């Protein structure tokens, strides 16, 4: 899908990357300032690096110094940015029909499919100023797709949205991937999004590629987890498979001696190690062991640390040999009287545990 070898220096920062990927969705992961957007702009042709070879879907778009230079408008790499950047002087329809050929595309079956997937029909005749943030981002996505791009360039498309809308846009992107089959270069600093959407992933740090591979593998490496922790608080665990309970629909994973985590049934043989991901929001805490609950996991654990961050409280727990994070509201943390060393029971639904391979 993409092959890239680029050295580009701008104002004291140097992007120096070399990678190739078959995609179809390549995640570019890294903390802010790691060069993600610079890389994306090199692919888009908005930056003209002195020394670069970039090919998109086997087409050489940049071979410098001396060789090919395809300007951005002929690269067919449509950009969707953090802010929707709709053209303020055009209507919603005008924005969607903006790209060359998009006007006809909008009337065609494939165009209607895009409108359908992104739920744009009710927005068509509205003024862009009256759209909400999530709606604007859907229009921006539609505008990009209607240009019939060879590749979508997504620059943190969810980060200006609140959590719920971000999840909605993410699921739309997943649909775009599965139904419209458009290759994507997806810049993000959210581990969860990376795992949900990307097939392959390049981790950037200070302008250099520090690792590449399937998101699961990349994120389970300590160095990349450092990046993930910088920006998210997802639980990433490497656990050994104990046994499968096929009738019960669960696989038991070892959290420590005598402590097992019931995860969705997986194919890995007992004795193998698997990665699982778990959002801190999905962990519920209880002071006593409750009876008669559907959640398959009620794990006794100790609170090791509590940190308050704005309107949320992050509780770190020790379960057997593993540690786990739970995110609570300050009122819940207060009502439970949580402190370092408190014994609690962590309730986790099996479905909240994501098998990462």
């Amino acid at each position, binding site marked *: 899908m993409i092959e890239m070898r680029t050295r580009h220096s701008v104002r004291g920062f140097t992007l120096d990357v070399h990678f190739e990927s078959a995609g179809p969705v390549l995640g570019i992961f890294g903390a802010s300032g790691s060069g993600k957007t610079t890389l994306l702009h090199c692919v*888009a042709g908005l930056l003209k690096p002195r020394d670069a070879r970039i090919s998109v879907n086997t087409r050489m778009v940049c071979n410098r110094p001396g060789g090919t230079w395809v300007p*951005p*408008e002929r690269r067919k790499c*449509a*950009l969707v940015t953090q*802010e929707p950047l709709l053209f303020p002087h055009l209507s919603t329809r005008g924005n969607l029909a903006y*790209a*060359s*050929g998009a006007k006809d595309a909008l009337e065609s079956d494939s165009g209607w499919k895009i409108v359908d997937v992104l739920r744009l029909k009710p927005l068509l005749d509205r003024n862009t100023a009256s759209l909400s943030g999530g709606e604007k981002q859907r229009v921006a996505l539609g505008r990009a797709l209607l240009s019939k791009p060879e590749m979508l360039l997504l620059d943190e498309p969810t980060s200006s949205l609140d959590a719920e809308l971000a999840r909605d846009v993410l699921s739309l992107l997943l649909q775009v991937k599965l139904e419209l089959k458009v290759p994507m270069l997806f810049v993000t600093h959210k581990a969860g999004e990376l795992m949900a959407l990307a097939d392959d992933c390049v981790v950037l740090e200070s302008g250099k590629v520090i690792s590449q591979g399937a998101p699961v593998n990349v994120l389970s490496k300590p160095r990349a987890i450092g990046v993930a922790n910088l920006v998210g608080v997802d639980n990433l665990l490497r656990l050994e498979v104990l046994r499968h309970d096929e009738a019960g629909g669960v696989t038991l994973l070892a959290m420590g001696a005598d402590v097992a985590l019931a995860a969705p049934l997986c194919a890995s043989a007992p004795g193998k190690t698997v990665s699982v991901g778990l959002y801190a929001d999905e962990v519920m805490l209880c002071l006593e062991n409750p009876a008669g609950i559907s959640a398959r996991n009620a794990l006794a654990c100790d609170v090791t640390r509590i940190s308050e961050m704005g309107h949320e409280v992050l509780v770190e727990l020790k379960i057997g040999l593993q540690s786990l994070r739970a995110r609570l509201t300050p009122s819940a943390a207060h009502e439970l009287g949580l402190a370092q060393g408190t014994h609690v029971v962590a309730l986790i639904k099996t479905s909240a545990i994501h098998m990462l391979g």
Partner: protein
Amino acid sequence: MLTGAETEVVLLSFQVAGWSVLVSVVPGILLGWLFARWHNPARALLQGLVMLPLVLPPVVTGYVLLWLLGRSGPLGSAWHSVTGGHIAYTTAACVIAAAIVGFPLMVEGIRLSVLGVDRRLEDVSRSLGRGRGATFLRVTLPLSLPGVVAGAVLSFARALGEFGATIVIAGNIEGQTRTIPVAVYTLLNAPGGEPGVMRLAGVSVAIALVALLVAFWLGARQRRRVSA
């Protein structure tokens, strides 16, 4: 009310100012855009050259124009050998003088409003398959249009008031180069000319006021639009 001669003066002034805006609007847009978007050391030099008539005494501007466009001047004589006509002391010379002194206001108005257009919109446009030219026409220009109109209105008002350069390059020929300021100057030197001066002064103030209000209103509109 205005006398016949005064009406002629006002109409001629409007014609001269109108033509001066018409001939300078396209180069004004190009230079305003260039000054906003082009990053090159040569830009400062070019920008200074365009801005010069704003700070130069208009009489000096007129003298430079006369030197260039006069009968023996390099452009004036070339024009004569091609067309057989002259530029100096014609209505065309009035238009040129008015356009030159109004041009900096036009360019600056356009430059500022192009600067107000989010460059990322231009980036998105290009990634959607629209080249530099199409992006300029479809995104940059429509979004900076209020600034273009404001710049045009200001330079129109400036052109109406042009005196120094006009009197040098175009003289004071009734019906051809006698615009409002030149007519006021003539009336001031004539016995009993005061009532005419008052009337023309009133017309000038009214036009200038309307032009400024329109320019301010467009400027505010542009700011609202950019912040939206």
